[in-house]
């Protein structure tokens, strides 16, 4: 299967899991159990980044299809983007579970690493479109 056929399906299904997170967050905000301000902030950041970045990934795959890259490079770029998105947004959830207010943690390191990975994927796409 082509990367630009399979990877969008993974993004669509992942968006359903983002919805599940949003459902839980709405429960916390409307009083079924409290997260506290610190955890709430990072839950919101994780939910929002995952949602927006997955929409970005769907746009990304449309453009990836237009590059002259071989299937191998397309797999590399697309998976780099998806791994970057999972790490960038997942790091916020690790931070709210393991981290402390005003301190960096393994979660924030994962978030920063994920951001670098998805930046690399975006540069690869840009070069391929030139």
């Amino acid at each position, binding site marked *: 299967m082509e990367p630009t*056929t399979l990877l969008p399906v993974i993004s*669509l*299904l992942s968006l359903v899991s983002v919805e599940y997170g*949003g459902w839980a967050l709405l429960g916390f905000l409307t*009083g079924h159990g409290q997260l506290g301000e610190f955890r709430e902030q990072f839950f919101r950041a994780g939910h929002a980044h995952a949602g927006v970045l997955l*929409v970005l990934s*769907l746009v990304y795959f*449309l453009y990836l299809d237009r590059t002259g890259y071989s299937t191998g490079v397309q797999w590399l770029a697309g998976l780099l983007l998806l791994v970057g998105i999972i790490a960038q947004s997942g790091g916020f959830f690790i931070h709210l579970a393991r981290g402390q207010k005003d301190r960096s943690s393994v979660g924030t390191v994962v978030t920063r690493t994920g951001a670098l990975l998805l930046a690399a994927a975006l540069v690869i796409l840009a070069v391929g479109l030139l």
Partner: protein
Amino acid sequence: MSPQSRLVAGVLLILVPTVEIGGASILTLLIADPSYTQNDLRQDLWRAGHAHPGVWLVLSLVALRYVDEANLSEGIRWVVRLAFPAAAILMPLAFFLSVLAPEAREPNALINVAYVAGLVLAVGLLVLGVGLIRGRPAGARAAEG
């Protein structure tokens, strides 16, 4: 892009400024209305009521680029074309109208519309995903050129 998808895309683009108006309203409240910033719940839900349609309308526009190459019948394609925008419209209705009163401490029953909107979006996502897994319809590639 099929004429059907182009039509929906046009309507969606016209809807985007309503999200901008909502954003401008919230900005005014944040700057000029102390009672708004004192009500955390209302701030949380109205922020969500602005963010979700903004992101979901963009998602709807992207979904339209995919639905024409999904292996689905025309009727099911319309389900996808309409599910995404319907969710994007229902979600802010729930978030804004459930805490309309400035002193609201908990959302009224309209918050349940948010769960319906989430369900509608999930249906759109899953149906489109299944359509893409099933592969491109015969002749779609040729028609694209």
